[in-house]
């Protein structure tokens, strides 16, 4: 399609931003894609395999890189935007190095930050050697080495759901939605790496609402012998033998349960990114109780902001998996194209 002579700035070069930039470019729109890191790809860069089909995350990255390989896209990597304001019929955007970008519409795809697990001090992340996060485990899978800090092989591994999610004490009352299925996926992968290991998932509720999630949960029980214990872990300590000790109530048995473990994996939840929060403040954008960008309408305007010409895509509006993020990014493009047709000409 020919150049429409309009410019859209996309902030965030993760899944949402890359997909949206690619789709906008194909619609004949000039896109400036701003990414704070040197490399695009966002969180997916750090992940090894993805649920529900356990595909290598590199395949998704390859797809996304192909999406943004377009003459209409200018990539500004290593940059952030610090503010924006409406000017005439468009928006004036200011980058961290003082550059001004003129755009007809601004798409925020600033994504999420993983919950900083050291904030749940009682779980011992950053205190005990072998308490790690879901992200740390993915890095281990990447290296192909699932080891304890001292180089030994873990034989009993616990997985804690809802770390920083559904937790008023962490300031997050919402469900991060992806951690249950990530726990199931990682539990299965641990068993594949270490066939003699025993894996225990500690959950409050198993939220298996996505496509093929419940099937994975069933596989985890049937084929991988993963153990599921219903109770929120209240504390983690270390015993005399240097093993981790978790305290939890086995709520279905109705009794407190104590278990020694070699390794504990914390399923860190998703939070609104700090950069997104700064932009919300700078640009007077509404945020919800969960601190994510509040869409103009939950049904018809999930990609629209409260300021004219500002759009959202992906996990900056709510926890979202990759499939949903790509769909949400495409929907944002549809809204933007519609907006540009009706307003700027």
């Amino acid at each position, binding site marked *: 399609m020919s150049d429409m002579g309009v410019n859209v700035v996309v902030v965030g070069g993760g899944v949402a931003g890359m997909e949206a930039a690619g789709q906008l470019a194909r619609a004949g729109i000039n896109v400036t894609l701003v990414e704070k890191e040197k490399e695009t790809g966002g969180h997916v860069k750090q992940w090894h395999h993805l649920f529900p089909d356990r595909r290598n995350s590199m395949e998704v990255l390859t797809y996304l890189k192909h999406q943004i390989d377009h003459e209409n896209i200018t990539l500004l990597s290593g940059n952030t935007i610090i503010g924006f304001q409406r000017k005439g019929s468009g928006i004036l955007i200011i980058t961290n190095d003082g550059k001004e970008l003129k755009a007809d519409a601004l798409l925020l795809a600033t994504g999420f930050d993983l919950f900083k697990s050291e904030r749940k001090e009682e779980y011992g992340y950053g205190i005990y050697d072998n308490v790690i996060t879901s992200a740390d485990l993915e890095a281990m899978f990447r290296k192909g080495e699932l080891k304890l800090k001292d180089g030994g092989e873990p034989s009993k591994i616990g997985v804690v759901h809802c770390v920083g999610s559904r937790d008023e004490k962490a300031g997050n009352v919402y469900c991060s939605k992806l951690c249950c299925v990530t726990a199931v996926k990682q539990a299965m992968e641990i068993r594949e790496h270490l066939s003699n290991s025993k894996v225990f998932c500690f959950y409050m509720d198993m939220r298996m609402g996505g496509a093929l999630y419940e099937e994975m949960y069933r596989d985890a029980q049937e084929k991988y012998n993963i153990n599921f214990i219903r109770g929120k*872990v209240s504390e983690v300590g270390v015993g005399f033998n240097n093993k981790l000790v978790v305290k939890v109530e086995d*709520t279905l048995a*109705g009794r407190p349960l104590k278990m020694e473990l070699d390794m504990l994996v914390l399923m860190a939840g998703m939070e609104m990114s700090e950069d997104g929060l700064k932009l919300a403040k700078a640009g007077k954008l509404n945020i919800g109780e969960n601190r994510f960008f509040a869409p103009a309408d939950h049904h018809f305007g999930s990609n629209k902001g409260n300021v004219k010409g500002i759009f959202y895509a992906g996990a900056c509006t709510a926890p979202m998996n990759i499939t949903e993020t790509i769909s949400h990014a495409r929907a944002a493009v549809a809204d933007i194209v519609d907006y540009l047709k009706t307003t700027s000409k």
Partner: protein
Amino acid sequence: MDKFGFTLSKARFIDYDANDRRVVDYIIEREPTLKLCIECGGCTATCSTGNFTEFSLREMNILLKRGENKKVRNKINQCMLCGKCILVCPRGVNTRNVVFLAKQAFQKFDGYAV
């Protein structure tokens, strides 16, 4: 076939309609956070009393909601009101106040000593 029936032994089931829920109503009116409990058991796992006895605050919460007051009344005095449960509760239930109010309610409705 119809003799097979659909009956439950009275000793076994929770008779929800017959049970007295004045106690739980009394508590919820004064401490509405009790409604937020999702039975995760964090309180029970960290409980000082539960470490040594069969006391389970999570169980207390659900029994109160079902009106199974007798079972609660026999156990609630085991709580030492240390408040560790409040620290771990992910739903912000003021568990210590729930215990305190339950004791008040038992005294008010059943004449039991606090």
